[in-house]
């Protein structure tokens, strides 16, 4: 008896449970991208906001004006092309760096005694909880000409003049690997800790040497973790702005920095929008790879 009105209530609750987050995300996540796309096709103007409308209605006719000039500019101007290439190169090298350093770390944590694992993972994650701005700032003090490294080296007598490290690409590599390392370790650890140990024992029983076992069994089985971790590093690094701005020099050209300058310094909103759209286009493959891995790993736990 009592259940009937409640049953009627259920679809309503269901409606709100889906409806609220759905509306929010459409409004504040999907719609903004549509607007970026729209502005990337408009003509810059000296006005507020600094671009012209896409369509005009006058004399009973609708004029739709799609300006492809911004995209042409993005693809033809060597500044932008070099910034994209610089970002991709930076993202590629730092992803490899994070992988080379992070994989053994994740492996060691996954092999540690169970009760130590949570503490070790917490220790890896803890730095990424503190302000990343402050961690980048810490490197400014370490790498600068009168910073810790140069001081120690000069005190030891290894060098007589400080080595220029801050404001170079080297500093940007260090800063990015440092900041993104935990994002590489976490998915790798999640993957490696689920690895079936009996497979490794079987390989050893059959006479496989450890390095061989690693290449033939451990590495292929952790492919999902490697992909997820690499994408979690690669994608945000392509758009990175703060690290090249603080640690890099004039020659460390990255697209996130250029976009920021176009938007805030030159106030060219249409070009900034097309830069963002092209960046998204470059990232479509890595983003799909990441999503595929994530939905796969989510299904596995069901």
């Amino acid at each position, binding site marked *: 008896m009592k259940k009937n009105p409640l049953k009627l209530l259920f679809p309503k609750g269901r409606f709100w449970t889906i409806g609220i987050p*759905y509306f929010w995300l459409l409004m504040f996540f999907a719609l903004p991208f549509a607007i970026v796309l729209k502005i990337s096709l408009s003509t810059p103007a000296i006005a507020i906001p600094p671009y012209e409308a896409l369509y005009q209605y006058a004399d009973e006719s609708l004029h739709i004006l799609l300006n492809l000039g911004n995209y042409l500019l993005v693809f033809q101007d060597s500044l932008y092309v070099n910034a994209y290439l610089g970002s991709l190169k930076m993202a590629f090298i730092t992803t490899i760096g994070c992988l080379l350093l992070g994989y053994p770390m994740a492996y060691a944590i996954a092999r540690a005694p169970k009760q130590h694992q949570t503490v070790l993972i917490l220790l890896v994650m803890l730095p990424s909880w503190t302000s990343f701005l402050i961690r980048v700032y810490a490197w400014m003090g370490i790498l600068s000409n009168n910073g810790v490294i140069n001081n120690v080296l000069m005190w030891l007598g290894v060098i007589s003049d400080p080595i220029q490290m801050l404001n170079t690409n080297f500093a940007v590599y260090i800063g990015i690997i440092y900041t993104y390392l935990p994002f590489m370790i976490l998915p790798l650890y999640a993957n490696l800790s689920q690895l079936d140990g009996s497979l490794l024992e079987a390989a050893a029983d059959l006479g496989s040497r450890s390095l061989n076992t690693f290449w033939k069994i451990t590495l292929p089985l952790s492919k999902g973790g490697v992909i997820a971790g690499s994408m979690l590093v690669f994608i945000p690094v392509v758009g*990175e702005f703060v690290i090249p701005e603080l640690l890099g020099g004039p020659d460390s050209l990255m697209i996130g920095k250029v976009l920021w300058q176009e938007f805030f310094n030159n106030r060219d909103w249409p070009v900034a929008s097309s830069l963002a759209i092209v960046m998204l286009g470059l990232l479509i493959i890595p983003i799909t790879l990441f999503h595929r891995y994530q939905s796969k790993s989510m299904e596995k736990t069901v």
Partner: protein
Amino acid sequence: MNNRLNKPSFSTIMLWAGMFFLYAPMFILVFYSFNESKLVTVWGGFSAKWYGELFRDEQILDAVWTSLKVAFFASTMAVILGTMAAFVMTRFARSWGRMTLSNMITAPLVMPEVITGLSLLLLFVHMADLFGWPAERGMLTVWIAHSTFCAAYVAVVVSSRLRELDMSIEEAAQDLGATPLKTFFYITVPMISPALIAGWLLSFSLSLDDLVIASFASGPGATTLPMVVFSSVRMGVSPKINALATLIILMVSLIAFISWYMARRADKRSRMASD
């Protein structure tokens, strides 16, 4: 036996080298925050005077307050949105709607911040143009931006917890006549509360930390702490920022320790209950 075969030496060495790499810069920073000298990297004796300077800096104090307010409200909203989305992702039948929702909610996890920030700013400008709201960008717009990207993290944390839950308890409650709403608040919420707290704390620290999205979404009225730090750091290294950084590191370590301790206690309790 296994250990010997897996070359523990190399990976363990790498683990400690990596930990050193992660922590050395922060220890150096904390050490130099007690430097008497005005030059950040020249040691001039032990002093806590920069902490005093820090607490006299109105601009920084204002920014701290703004950041804390935004982070508090954004993480609360993110927990609400993220939990609802996680519930849809784990409890509702697979459908087109569920797919798009889970794609949309996890997308901010990897989206480059400049793109998210730029697109949100353009949205706010458009909305102001069309119906005059938001009249100017400030705390409200930063709150919206932070809620959106923090919800992604909450959804991931909460949905993994929801998947582990034994659904028969919820079903039993409903069979005994509890409404879905009642079941949710009396049965599900207490069971997922560690994940809710973890998601809230994670969102709080993410919101406190965010510079890029806040720079795009905020107006002249709302300057968050990372924005102040960024503009002062761009001018050069300053000992006051060392002191501030030390306090932030201390606070975060404390929060991390508390959440770890609570998670461990909850884990122990649930293990005792199941024994």
